[in-house]
């Protein structure tokens, strides 16, 4: 394109964008874009015909290496599936038959079971944990994708060498190009000129404008998920898209207002896809010398996020000592408004942690939180952060299940750690077996083709081709385990109120026969999260032992296992399968979430919880850790309240915390708190000169708060 044509075209972009500047009216319609697509029947094969075509191809080529077979099946879908381009959507990506590849993954998994699958299933059913093939925690090499574009990626693979792997990569990226051209035609048919122009440009070139870069980013996203790996992270957003913003700015293509509008539509894509785990956008980073790298686009993109007010995408904000006050202030304002989908991550501890995980400073610069909170290097790591899940609390049950019970506390704790080691080793052994099946079950030429490191190694991500090939173990229930060990120490061995044998009976009877002892344990013994040094030291010993064990265990892909101290919703699943515990918890009840106190046991407020959590060595938790802070809007209201969250973050980080997130409760939660007060014992409200627990208020006062919270919306 010559210069004057380009200018004219770019002017058209702006005009079209202004026309599209009706986000609010289109929002409802576009929210349904994935749930109610309108595929053009003339644009390709029906899903049934496509399915037949795929099975025919697969049957005729059953001897082909899976990576080539997969690449060709991928090609068939993107070149033949029906398309849908909405005339009002500034981005195009809808392809029918995206789900037709997944069955092959399932078939190939069934054909390649791991040797001792029954043991793994037993562990899963008992609530101890489970090993799996984790395909869903990926961050592709967004830098390569945006720098090279699809033909660039294809040509890079062709130039890199001649093997099944490189050929498969070239096949998928070449068909990606054809897909883009098909979509461009469809967009023209729909009268969506601007999308047509963008796509025609992207078919053969790397993106130049922010608009094109965002379009390519989402297109890639859709195709990778079709290939079989969820895109958990859209990358370090403000670093990736900053050059495109600068380009547009220099060319006078778009105002900041228009950029934000475009981002609204982009975020809406994430929301409309309606996948519960959400897309993670990372903001704010720092380089090897700890220089802050945030920029104007950081603010702009965060402001746009605030304006859309969605829970998806979610945000990770990396904090370093030089993060500008404006960015922190904006993020905290979001949290205060109830937009609590932001994880704050501490660059200083992350740096130490990643370095212990064997990563050099130049790579650490590009770390992001993948999925929920798992640190990983963008485009250079398959961290498989949930290769195993593990339940600390269940192991307490195992100690009591032994034929001979321990005779001292020291022996009890040793027995706990022995059983923990045995359990984890079994889970890791199963995870290794799963890893061996990976390249047969889910070769990933598209994802691997994005990654420069795979091109260098000549191997697919499923074959240990990335620079870092680690496997994470999510370890849940640490608070309940520590509380239980402490209760045994105190009640059985120190005070000798009950024997271990009797306690075992009480647990088997789910405390029914010992309500007084249970009440005493619940009410008078220290609990995790209350800044009790003795108790917290148990949690520290358990987690350090676990981290030493896991972090030094090799996987089969040239990497090692990594310890994650978080639970997400597994505190519920695991809790349902965990019997009564010495900490007074009933059978089947949920465990503490992440690093929170076990339910109702948070007695000393959030500063104590922060102090407890900071006692752990978070730099050992290579698969991440997260602290949840629960606050009521009124506890952070007003000018004085505004300062609370930044100080909590700062003080947690100064003491070595890795990541923190906040909950500001709204009216709905308060109503729930009225109905189930036992679950909200740590929800505090400001009534006047201090904070008070919400559940301690009388019904009328609670109703008043609810009314206030409702008025806020």
């Amino acid at each position, binding site marked *: 394109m010559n210069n004057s044509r380009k200018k004219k075209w770019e002017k058209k972009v702006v005009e079209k964008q202004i026309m599209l500047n009706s986000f609010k009216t289109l929002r409802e319609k576009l929210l349904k874009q994935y749930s109610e697509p309108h595929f053009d029947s003339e644009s390709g094969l029906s899903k049934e015909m496509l399915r037949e075509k795929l099975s025919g191809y697969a049957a005729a080529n059953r001897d082909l290496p899976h990576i080539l077979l997969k690449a060709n099946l991928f090609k068939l879908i993107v070149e033949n599936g029906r398309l849908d381009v909405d005339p009002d959507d500034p981005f195009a990506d809808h392809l029918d038959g995206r789900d037709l590849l997944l069955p092959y993954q399932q078939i190939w998994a069934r054909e390649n079971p791991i040797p001792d699958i029954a043991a793994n299933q037993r562990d899963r059913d008992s609530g101890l944990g489970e090993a799996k093939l984790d395909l869903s925690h990926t961050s592709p090499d967004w830098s390569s994708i945006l720098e090279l574009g699809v033909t660039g990626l294809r040509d890079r693979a062709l130039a890199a060498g001649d093997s099944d792997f490189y050929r498969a990569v070239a096949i998928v990226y070449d068909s990606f190009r054809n897909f883009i051209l098909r979509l461009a035609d469809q967009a023209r048919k729909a009268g969506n000129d601007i999308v047509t122009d963008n796509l025609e440009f992207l078919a053969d070139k790397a993106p130049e404008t922010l608009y094109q870069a965002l379009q390519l980013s989402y297109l890639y996203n859709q195709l990778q998920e079709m290939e079989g790996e969820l895109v958990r992270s859209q990358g370090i957003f403000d670093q990736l898209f900053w050059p495109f913003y600068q380009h547009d700015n220099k060319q006078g293509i778009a105002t900041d207002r228009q950029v934000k509008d475009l981002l609204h539509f982009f975020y809406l894509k994430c929301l409309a896809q309606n996948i519960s785990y959400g897309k993670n956008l990372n903001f704010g980073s720092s380089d090897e010398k700890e220089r802050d790298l945030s920029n104007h686009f950081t603010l702009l993109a965060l402001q746009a996020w605030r304006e859309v007010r969605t829970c998806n995408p979610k945000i990770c904000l990396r904090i370093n000592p030089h993060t500008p006050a404006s960015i922190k202030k904006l993020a905290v304002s979001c949290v205060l408004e109830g937009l609590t989908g932001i994880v704050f991550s501490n660059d200083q501890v992350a740096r130490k942690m990643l370095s212990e995980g064997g990563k050099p400073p130049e790579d650490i610069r590009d770390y992001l939180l993948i999925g929920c909170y798992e640190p990983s290097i963008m485009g250079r790591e398959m961290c498989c952060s949930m290769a195993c899940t593990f339940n600390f609390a269940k192991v307490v049950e195992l100690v009591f299940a032994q034929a001979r019970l321990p005779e001292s506390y020291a022996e009890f704790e040793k027995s706990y750690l022995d059983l923990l080691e045995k359990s984890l080793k079994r889970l890791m052994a199963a995870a290794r077996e799963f890893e061996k099946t990976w390249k047969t079950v889910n070769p990933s030429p598209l994802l691997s083709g994005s990654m420069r490191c795979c091109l260098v190694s000549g191997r697919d991500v499923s074959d240990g081709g990335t620079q870092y090939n680690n496997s994470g173990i999510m370890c849940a229930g640490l608070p309940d385990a520590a509380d239980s060990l402490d209760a045994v120490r105190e009640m059985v061995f120190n005070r000798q109120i009950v024997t271990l044998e009797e306690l075992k009976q009480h647990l088997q009877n789910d405390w029914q026969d010992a309500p007084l002892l249970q009440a005493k344990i619940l009410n008078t013994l220290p609990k995790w999260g209350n*800044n009790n040094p003795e108790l917290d030291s148990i949690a520290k010993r358990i987690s350090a032992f676990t981290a030493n064990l896991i972090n030094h265990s090799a996987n089969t892909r040239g990497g090692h296992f990594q310890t994650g101290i978080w639970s997400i919703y597994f505190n519920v699943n695991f809790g349902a399968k965990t019997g009564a515990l010495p900490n007074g918890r009933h059978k089947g009840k949920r465990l503490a979430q992440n690093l929170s106190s076990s339910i109702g046991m948070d007695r000393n407020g959030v500063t104590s919880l922060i102090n407890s959590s900071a006692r752990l060595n978070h730099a050992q938790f290579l698969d991440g850790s997260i602290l949840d802070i629960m606050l009521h809007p009124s506890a952070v209201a007003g000018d*004085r*309240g505004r300062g609370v969250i930044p*100080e909590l973050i700062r003080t947690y980080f*100064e003491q070595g915390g890795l990541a923190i997130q906040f909950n500001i409760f709204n009216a709905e939660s308060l109503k729930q708190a009225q109905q189930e007060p036992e679950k909200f014992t740590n929800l505090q409200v*400001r009534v*006047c*000169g201090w904070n008070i627990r919400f559940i*301690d208020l009388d019904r009328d006062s609670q109703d008043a708060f609810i009314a206030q919270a409702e008025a806020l919306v």
Partner: protein
Amino acid sequence: MIQGLYIDFKRLTIHDGPGLRSTLFMKGCPLHCLWCHNPESIDSHPTLGFYADKCILCGNCTQVCDCHQIVNGRHLYDRDQCVACGKCADVCPTQALELYGRPITVDEAMKMALSDRLFYHNSGGGVTVSGGEPLLQADFCAEFFERLHADGIHTAVDTCGNVPWEAFVKVIPYTDLFLYDFKEADNAKHREYIGHGNKLILKNLQRLDEAGCAIEIRMPLIPGLNDTDTDLNSAGEFLSRLKHLTGIRVLPYHGYAKNKYVAVGREFNLTGQCPPSADKMDAVKKCLQTHHLSILED
């Protein structure tokens, strides 16, 4: 070692002085304000709180004390026989029974306070003693504050002022800020609402000011009781003569304490009271400002 009697130690308090703080609520108060929102603090001896709505009739308490009985599905509590030993509270699974007033040593108070010192340091916060009336236990407060000062921690006393001047003398050397309640300028009205005249309170306030102490005035605003123009102008006149005020904080009345009155077996005599409207709050602040007083906002 001096022992204090306290009700609660709250962390992350942000309205009892600058920054993020902890507040130690002490037991006992010489006044009986009609609107008191900490009725559990009034007696100088321990008090048992019984929250009937939280009771699940488990009967744990009946096994440790005869003051509790479960009869026909109802929990009967004999407050007259109760000495508030707190054994029942220890075994109550739902905190339907709570003991207000536990002994505490300065060492124990220090241990609790120091655990959050980094939060104080980072936010310019510190430790406040409140209550009840903390200066009824002035020796304890003085020693506690002396130790806090030795550790470089900011200290504040939240006081009603109705204590002998000697109590102030004890804490002045170690106190960075006095949060001083000013409820009513008129002596007769003061006696009516609060059960005591205000002469000692006003006198102490003047002496504290003369001693050069930093004072933040806290004025609870109770509609219909102390919110007339006369009330406010007399207050304004008196306060405008003081030299060391950091400002005035007007605290709107709230009725959130009703539950606690029932729990500790006290009568709440201020029924039908509503919080002041936002307009009223603005008018009050404006009125005080005409006396050249600086109003502190949340």
